[in-house]
């Protein structure tokens, strides 16, 4: 093995001998480098989980937004053809809207009587629920928000806010919560409730600081 390695020049050997010495880095540079390394480590300890979830969340959001837009587009086209959008069910009358503050996304029914519900009946879908239930709840979310979008396209902001409130009650942390809250801001702005729109936009920014809709929302209330 050694025979493959050429003999070094004797003059070069002297230089290489001196060159093998590894000088010590100054204490200042050493301390600075270690401090930077610690900071890097601290930052990377936080980052690994976040980008994955944020990337997945963002891609999901984009996909949902796209599907929602397609659904709304189809509904608007249908409405344009028929002249008016039929609303088959109207569970929340507009009067309910005024009794509730618009930005209560986690609001629960105000006074629940002391009757303990039977354990077999769950009031709202849980995260660990059966997959089919999750799909159904998503379909219900999408349906509700699509109608709200149609109402928004028709500039019926009270109707929009009613549907948004209904969505907030049924799916406070649903998969389309971000879209719902964005729609709420736009509906408040459209209905001329500027102060509430500002507050809703601020709450939206707090809750969804990385939302792709945030730049547009922060511009709209102006």
């Amino acid at each position, binding site marked *: 093995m050694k025979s493959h390695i050429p003999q070094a020049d004797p*003059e*070069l050997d002297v230089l290489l001998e*001196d060159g093998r010495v590894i000088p010590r*880095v100054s204490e200042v540079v050493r301390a600075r480098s270690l401090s930077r*390394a610690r900071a890097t480590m601290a930052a990377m300890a936080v980052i690994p989980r976040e980008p994955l979830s944020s990337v997945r969340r963002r891609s999901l959001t984009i996909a949902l937004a796209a599907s929602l837009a397609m659904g709304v587009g189809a509904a608007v086209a249908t409405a344009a053809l028929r002249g008016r959008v039929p609303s088959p069910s109207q569970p929340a009358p507009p009067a309910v809207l005024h009794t509730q503050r618009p930005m209560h996304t986690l609001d629960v029914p105000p006074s629940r009587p002391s009757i303990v519900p039977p354990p077999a009946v769950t009031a709202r879908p849980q995260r660990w629920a059966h997959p089919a239930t999750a799909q159904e709840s998503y379909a219900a979310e999408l349906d509700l928000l699509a109608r709200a979008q149609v109402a928004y396209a028709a500039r019926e902001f009270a109707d929009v806010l009613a549907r948004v409130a209904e969505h907030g009650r049924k799916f406070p942390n649903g998969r389309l919560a971000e879209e719902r809250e964005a729609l709420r801001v736009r509906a408040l702005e459209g209905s001329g409730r500027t102060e509430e729109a500002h507050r809703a936009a601020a709450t939206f920014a707090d809750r969804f600081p990385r939302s792709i809709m945030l730049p547009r929302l922060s511009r709209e209330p102006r």
Partner: protein
Amino acid sequence: MGYLRLAHSAPPAPTPESACLAAFEGEIDYLFTTLKRLGAAPHEIEDLAQEIFVVLYRQWRTLDTDRPIRPYLFGVAFRILYAHHRRRTREVLCADVDADDGALSPEGSLQSKQTVALLMAALQRLPVSRRAVVVMHDLDEVPITDIARSLAITRFGAYARLRKGRRELAAAVRRLSKGEARI
């Protein structure tokens, strides 16, 4: 006295993070020297060392810490520096070499300093790929098989680079000694 023994009997187990940081701290002199040998400009060395640390930290859990860490660090340093150089032009590299040649000034008092400066200046005349092999083999004294593994080349490729690199290094030293590059 029993409580004293109790207090000293359970040293905290090092976490992977602290072990990685300790390894970096232990090899920081080597890293800075290696980066310099590979041709990094003095003002770039700290940043490049941080880049090496990021790689080290990311790979720490999968790293075989029973093996010597220097060849691994050298491989990382080489790749990072090579990528860094590719972002810059080759002409900038040569400009740095000329700037470093200032270390050969007559007022350099210690002869060893002069010889190291001469060696560093001569090394910069080598292409990065051959310089890496010469530095690893002749300065870090890493076996050729480990060099080949670290740089992801064949052993024969490593031998060839070493042979040619040494010839070029000797020629560069002769030229610099004669003062061809200076005065």
